């Protein structure tokens, strides 16, 4: 803690806004896969099931369409809601992460308790220049605390700031 770190400003920060389009794509892909599997299952049932009543045959595609509409809506809307409810704050003491839309959790990890830190990047994250910060502590429940959707360079700076800079630090 010799020179003031620019990331350790003690202010609440939101994630990088680019996380919203990124999560829309990721969620869209996931939902598309799920709905395609459901579609395949439905087609098989329709082809094989001879004893289905007419209304059952009609209901299934309608049901699938409704579900698909919900999935599409969820994939497009959820990232923005999630974005609004996620924030983090880094200061000299450590990092505080708040997450969760319905079930909200605020986690504070003191700087001196961080064992090691990963900054990972998936293919989509690389495209958007984002990274996932993963903190490891010696605890049990929160042995691994992840914060996805931080600008990659910033994630690296947070890592530099949080990692113990020498013996006797923060005593």
């Amino acid at each position: 803690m010799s020179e003031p770190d620019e990331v350790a400003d003690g202010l609440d920060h939101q994630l990088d806004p680019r996380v919203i389009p990124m999560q829309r794509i990721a969620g869209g892909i996931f939902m598309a896969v799920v709905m395609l599997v459901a579609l395949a299952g439905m087609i098989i049932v329709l082809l094989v099931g001879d004893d289905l009543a007419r209304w059952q045959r009609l209901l299934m595609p309608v049901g699938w369409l409704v579900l698909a509409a919900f999935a599409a809506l969820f994939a497009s809307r959820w990232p923005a809601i999630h974005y609004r409810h996620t924030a983090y704050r880094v200061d000299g003491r450590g990092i505080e992460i708040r997450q969760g839309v319905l079930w909200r959790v605020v986690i504070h990890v003191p700087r001196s308790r961080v064992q090691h830190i990963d900054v990972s990047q998936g293919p989509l994250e690389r495209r958007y220049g984002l990274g996932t910060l993963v903190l490891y502590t010696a605890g049990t429940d929160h042995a691994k605390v992840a914060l996805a959707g931080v600008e990659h360079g910033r994630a690296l700076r947070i890592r530099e700031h949080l990692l113990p800079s020498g013996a006797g630090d923060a005593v």
Partner: protein
Amino acid sequence: MPSEQRLHPATLLFDLAGHIKRFAVPAILVIVGATRSSGGPGGSFGGIPAGWEVWLLVLFVPAMLVSVARYLSFRLHYDDHELVIRSGLVFRNVRHIPFARIQNVDAVENVFHRFFGVAEVRVETGGGKEEEARLRVLPRTAFDEMRRHVLRERAAGPQVGPDDATGPAPEAAGQTLVHLPLRELLLCGFLENKGMVLVGAAAGVIWESGLGNRLMGQVFGGSDALSRSFFREVMRGIFDGGPLPLARMGLGLAAVIAFLLIVRILSMAWALLRLYDFRLTRLDEDLRTEYGLLTRVTATVPIRRVQTITVRAGPLHRWLKRATVHVETAGGAGAKSAAPMREWLAPLIRQEDLPALLQGVLPGFDVAAMAWQPLHPRAFARAVKPKLILDAIVTLVAAATIGWGAIGVAILLLPWSIVSARQYVKHLAWAESDEMVVMRSGWIWQRMTVARVNKIQAVALHQSPFDRRAAMARVRIDTAGAGEFAHRVDVPYLDSRVARGLFERLSAQAANTAFRW
């Protein structure tokens, strides 16, 4: 003091025993197989003479040679500040372990070890996945000497203040915190009820062997069908006012009571074997436990590695004014460190001695002086709701299956839900000081957990939608070594402002202390 030490010659004997144990299963297979050999004229390996499997035992010889080589090459000596272990005949290995880095010197002695006056010694340091050195087997005196070295170095180490000029810590000056005499030991066995584990194992065996059915049959008069008719008779007796099979009911009841008694007696025997002469001593910064009748275990827990302390007291414990104390330690050393370690601090202690023990382990901690804080005033309303919903579901299911009898179910469930929720909220309390945070909970089985602030890994503030509606929150503290089902500091139903304050304070305090393993 000899400058170099070897392992005790009995090492070879123990290695031999170990190999025999390891080879026992294959050897038995060999002996059984040799009578119906796969070699010989009719066997699958036609050309090989019958009984060739016996030759597999030749593998035993190299294993033993390795043992001899290890014994001959092993040297141990003490430098000024480190323990030096040389081993290996072909590939030579010299390992230096500074005394200051040694966390634990543990010893295990079983009956055979004690016969030879030796012990299996494990030297553990902070890092790594496994113990730094496993010395099988050292003379008992060498173990004491090693411990003396380590302790002296630690006493002179930099982490202790300058006031240790009073001289090196004398070995025998440990302060005995807990000692279990025979009476307490048996009581402990009685209360712990470990016998159930043995009974479970025995029940499995009996069931497998088909002995169970015969036993049941004898108690309930003949065959399986009859024993079922016994229960039907009882049911009819209760609901339709028919004649009750009193004689057989009495017999059954007596059997149940006898069974419970036997379980308790088994548990007492377990306590006698496992915890015989339990002794907890404090030596400077270490807690040392020693226990066991046949296998004697000496374990050391450095006080600074204690993560949380949990005090438990069931109804019988409270009636007898007793409690049990566990510590959770974590990490640092040993292959087992990945999993949390729970250790006895006191298998049984009088409640009046409890504050002194806690003081001894956590200086400055006084249970009586803790200002216990209750939950939110409306916590009961929150706590009772899930129980009522569950009751409603159970009652509805009951109504669907047994009809009007569901009213009886509801009459039984409702008061229990209300009373248990009321008592749960009443007994849940938390307290904090500069160095500790404490939570106690439980109505019938009461538990109290003390976590030191410098052992807090992370603090979390949880808010469910229901919490938000009631302006409440839950504060949860994460420590190393808290098992999945361990009692931990996790306070629900707090006023959200109180929770926020606690969260902020604990975060700040935790951040201001350094964590050391």
